[in-house]
């Protein structure tokens, strides 16, 4: 259910317009990196939803995974470390006809940028935010991240992490995200479903992805997750039950759930911002020509 865009220069019908595909830039990730599956899932999800590439903006921050917008043919904004979300919100409010997808890593989203994430979720801005969560800082060559587990040895924690990890799924549930899912780079088909449904979701869709770093995280590997993940869809989980979603989000150990934790339909920020009812802001008239009566209030 992609939204239509009132673009001023549309000369072709939407069905003739190109859909998002690969760009000319080849991914720069390490061979075997989990992020290859994530970019593939976003590409396949957008193809499934048949959203013209002109109407898609992929926003990222800084980190290995944040290079993602370069590898697809949509519009993109590759911004600052930790600021993926506010740029994405700004794009969305500037033109809410666009499909806006935020991408990035666990450091970007849950470390330096976590403040923005919480507020975007409670606002229920219609965005899809896909985190490539590898539980380590990769681009800076292997330091602890907010999702590194207790005891994990990294360059910044040579004797092991002594902080509790942040749980992105529980955080999202507590913050008011209206679509909360977790995927695994080892299951692209499942991940594509989660991303596609997230993009189609009317509200803030959060998809945390176990996307292993093959270079700097020797604990949370593909094998680690393959042995542990199970799908909520096959476990009788009811995604409309917030309490059950919280329960599932706390599971970590021999069995780790992936899939859709929670989904609910609520008014989005854009629904409630009355100014946007007149159409995308970018195409609304502006200025004060002929509004001299406005000056009366200063008398």
């Amino acid at each position: 259910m992609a939204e239509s865009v009132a673009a001023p220069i549309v000369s072709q019908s939407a069905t003739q317009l190109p859909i998002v595909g690969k760009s000319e830039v080849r991914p720069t990730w390490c061979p075997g990196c989990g992020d290859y599956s994530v970019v593939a899932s976003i590409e396949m999800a957008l193809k499934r939803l048949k959203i013209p590439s002109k109407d898609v903006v992929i926003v990222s921050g800084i980190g290995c995974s944040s290079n993602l917008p370069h590898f697809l043919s949509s519009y993109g904004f590759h911004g600052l470390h930790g600021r993926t979300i506010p740029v994405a919100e700004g794009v969305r409010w500037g033109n809410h006809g666009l499909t806006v997808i935020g991408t990035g890593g666990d450091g970007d989203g849950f470390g330096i940028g976590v403040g923005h994430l919480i507020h975007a979720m409670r606002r229920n801005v219609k965005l899809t935010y896909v985190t490539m969560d590898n539980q380590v800082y990769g681009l800076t060559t292997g330091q602890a991240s907010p999702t590194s587990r207790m005891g994990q040895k990294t360059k910044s924690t040579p004797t092991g992490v002594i902080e509790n990890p942040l749980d992105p799924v529980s955080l999202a549930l507590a913050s008011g995200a209206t679509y909360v899912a977790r995927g695994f780079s080892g299951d692209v088909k499942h991940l594509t479903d989660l991303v596609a449904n997230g993009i189609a979701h009317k509200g803030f869709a959060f998809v945390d992805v176990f996307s292993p770093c093959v270079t700097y995280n020797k604990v949370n590997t593909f094998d680690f997750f393959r042995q542990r993940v199970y799908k909520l869809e096959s476990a009788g989980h009811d995604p409309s039950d917030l309490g059950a979603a919280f329960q599932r989000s706390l599971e970590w150990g021999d069995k780790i759930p992936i899939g859709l934790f929670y989904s609910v339909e609520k008014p989005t920020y854009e629904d409630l911002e009355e100014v946007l009812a007149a159409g995308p802001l970018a195409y609304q008239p502006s200025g004060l020509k002929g509004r001299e009566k406005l000056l009366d209030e200063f008398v």
Partner: protein
Amino acid sequence: MKELAVRVGGQAGDGIASIGESIARSFSRMGLHVFGLNAYQSVIRGGHVWYHARASEGKVHCQGDTADILYALDRQTVDVHASILRPGGTVIFDPEKFPLAPTDVSSELHLLPVPTLEIARKYTSQSILQNAAGIGATAFLAGIPLDVIHQVLTDSFGRKAGDVVTWNIGASADGYRFAETKGPIHPKAIAKKGPPKLLMTGNQAIALGAAAAGCKFLVQYPMTPATSIMHWLAAHSRALGIVVKQSEDELASINMAIGASFAGVRTMTASSGGGFALMTEGLGMAGMAEVPVVVVDAARAGPSTGLPTKTEQGDLNLLLGAGQGEWPRAVLAPSDPVEAYRLTAVAFDLAERFQTPVLVLTDFHLAEAMEGVDREEIDLNIPIPSLFTVAPDSHRYRRYLDTESGVSPRAFPGQPGLNHIALSDEHDEYGGDVSDIRAGIPAAIAVRKKMMEKRMRKLKGLAKEAPPPVLEGPADAPLTFVAWGSPVGAVRDAMTILHEKGKATNLLRFPTLYPLDPDVVRSMFARTRKTLLIEGNFSGQFAHLLRAETGIELPQKFLKYDGEPFYPHQIVARAQEVL
């Protein structure tokens, strides 16, 4: 030129600003030029606050040095402010609140005891109504007709329920008539002079200017003294079709503004120095990604939290150096509300045309003081060229095309065939990232050099297009004041005083602080004789900038960093030393 000033003082929470604004607005509606200064502290209740309303037949540019009527809601007000009353001035007070004997003040002053509490009790048990009685007495003494003050009170309380308006009308009339029985109106009182004037703060002028210049998205986190920009636009959001977003912090403010601008709307954010400091990384990204954005810094006295409700021009260096690395920017500094309105529109125009941040630097004094404005000075008809100027073509679109001006054709998401990535990393003309696998190889080194030069070339255009320095006063005066921002008002009034003393001076002021065109600036200084810099900071930041950009030295400086605005008499005294 006849002028009269009223000062009202009391405790925070007493309604001092409301009293003061009622008086200021009444003068303005009488067609007088008004300057209204609200001096307060960073608390909601308690602490000494005061309001100064200066009215004149001719233009006044600042709060001035004196007052004629002091309405004191507490004894502290008399102790602090009676000394600024001119001979023949009057202190209005309620003896039920505190005793005051003629011997407590200068023998050249009059006392007018008014039973404001007693009047209020006729109507309600709410003691706040005493203010209406005080306003009435003050209005009589200040020559404000009763119907003018009644209309102002009706307009301010009209939204409130029940008897509030009736009580205010009644109590103010009682106060007015009480004063009438006690003596004549103040000899300096001015009669109605012409059509009503507008009365606006610098912040309101900026908000209005942004709306007129096509701003569709204002994002801001509350911080004194920038907050009222958001208040004005929020109040008019629906009517004007402008989205006003209160962000979670200033990091979000600048990044949201950049996102919305990337999507194709004109955007603005505003804060004071502390919030601006948080925006600096984002600003650099806007410079790098070539996204227009207008950012207002309404400076207050720093460093750090500093004096939140006091004024200073200490943020100039912050704005000049904001952000890592080098990127093109312009810094504009309006000196009064009319210029704040116009320069805000200029800021939007320059930001759009040069696709880079334009910073507007004000201070507490300009942001919050109210000044009279003639309706004709505000032209709402500001041209807003369409942002959609790039047609899709068969060639691969180069968002960062290297051009002579440094400005590249700009496209927006939603436009077919123009897909691109905007980015904070160094990039080639297509928006391809050269920071990662390509950095350091010869082709990428060449790209880096070329793109730096492309972006920084915009400074040349900005220096030509941004408003040049303005010379006010006689060209051949023996002393030239050099100033920017709100102190310009006090300088203008000081020049009038010096003129009356037979001393000719002029003023060279800088609506654009950066970039300066060195040739233009040097040619303007070529005709000056002695100079005196008037700047509201400790180190003379503008003098450093001017020397760095033009080689011109300003050896004589009057620097102020006590949190208070410049007063004309202070500038006159310093000028006489220099002359």
